[in-house]
């Protein structure tokens, strides 16, 4: 086996990211580790999310774990599949978005109403698409906070709308597609009524009211980069019809 370190102290997070290859140089594990207090806590939080995900999806992401007093390391199984290009934005990624929301509904619709959890970074970049399923990765912002169901799904929709709007004007076909996605979420019981009429602004408010979940990463969330006026405009066009 051969390892390759890809990010030491990524984004000053104190977390190391490496890939472990087999003798034929095929990736087999993604390893995340930390050797200082706060990053270890963060990794442990991620494992909490991964454990939850494994339980509800029957998909085991973790291969092995090392928990020492000054070091914590997790080897995730390397998931084979395709990733959408985050920067392509809404229209190009519409099929990926639909598959992602199907997966969201599969998992979250089975939760009891009082057992709500959020992934916290349900981005197209954190999904791996294969023929058999969509795998959700990077659970570092997992939280059992009381944010109503639908938050993560909306985060994905508006992240991709934000990426789309950086290059193009909103078109009717994008609006229709986004509306159909919101309707679909509602129909499968995965969109709380609180989001019905102002989905984007409501989701933004939930982030702003729960800053501790995202910490310094909050400024990077695309959904928060949508200005208040643009959010208002989007909410008049895209909502539960």
């Amino acid at each position: 086996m051969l390892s390759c370190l890809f990010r030491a102290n990524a984004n000053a997070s104190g977390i190391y990211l490496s890939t472990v290859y087999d003798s034929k140089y095929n990736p087999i594990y993604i390893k995340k580790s930390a050797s200082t207090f706060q990053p270890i806590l963060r990794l442990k939080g991620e494992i909490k999310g991964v454990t939850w995900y494994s339980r509800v999806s029957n998909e085991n992401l973790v291969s092995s774990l090392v928990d020492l007093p000054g070091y914590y390391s997790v080897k995730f199984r390397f998931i084979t599949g395709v990733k959408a290009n985050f920067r392509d934005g809404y229209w190009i990624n519409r099929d990926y978005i639909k598959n992602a929301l199907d997966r969201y509904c599969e998992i979250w619709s089975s939760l009891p109403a009082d057992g709500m959890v959020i992934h916290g970074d349900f981005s197209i970049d954190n999904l791996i698409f294969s023929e058999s399923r969509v795998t959700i990765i990077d659970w570092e912002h997992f939280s059992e906070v009381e944010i109503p169901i639908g938050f993560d799904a909306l985060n994905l929709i508006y992240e991709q709308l934000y990426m789309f709007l950086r290059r193009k004007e909103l078109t009717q076909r994008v609006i229709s597609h986004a509306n159909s996605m919101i309707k679909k979420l509602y129909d499968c019981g995965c969109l709380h009524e609180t989001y019905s009429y102002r989905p984007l602004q409501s989701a933004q408010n939930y982030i702003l009211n729960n800053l501790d979940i995202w910490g310094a990463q909050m400024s990077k969330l695309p959904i928060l980069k949508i200005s208040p006026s643009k959010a208002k405009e989007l909410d008049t066009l895209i909502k539960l019809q």
Partner: protein
Amino acid sequence: MFDVNKEGILEVFDFRAKNVLCCSFDATHIIGLINRGAIIWFEDKDKQKVYELEAYPSFKNSINFVVNNRPNLFDYSMVSDINHGVLEKNRPFFVKEHIVTLAGKFNVIKWHLFSHRLFLTDDRTLYSVVPSLDNVRLVIPELFEISFQRYWTLRCPNPLGSLKLTAEWLFIKSGLFRKLFFDKLIVIKC
């Protein structure tokens, strides 16, 4: 004293419950090894150098000296000099793998010109240790091509930092430049 970025090279290995003979005296690496569950050994002749380390009080209870109770074999040795005696064939103890850190352009060029001949190609694995704004960012094996674009960034709050990142990127993108100009991590199997 302790540099989380410099410690990154240790991530390429699994040190848990492994006997590691330290022939270099980098406090970051020593503490990093201890954190990763390694059993650290120093040669008795190096005692004085270890005592003189500023960080010695913080790890004095976690290290051993090779006197009589040394293990029969060491899983790794940590070396920062390619001519260190521990790499010689006729040493009195057995080490499974030597981890050699080569820092500085002079040492890297010397390795390419002369020292590499001392070891069989099949016995050694070379990694380039690539910094980003002076931090270890990537440790890339030279055995095969790896796509690492997505792990690099050109963004930096300081425009001069962005320029530096761009220049560094141009250097690491080129396999030849990477091979010649960046610090090396060499793993030698025995």
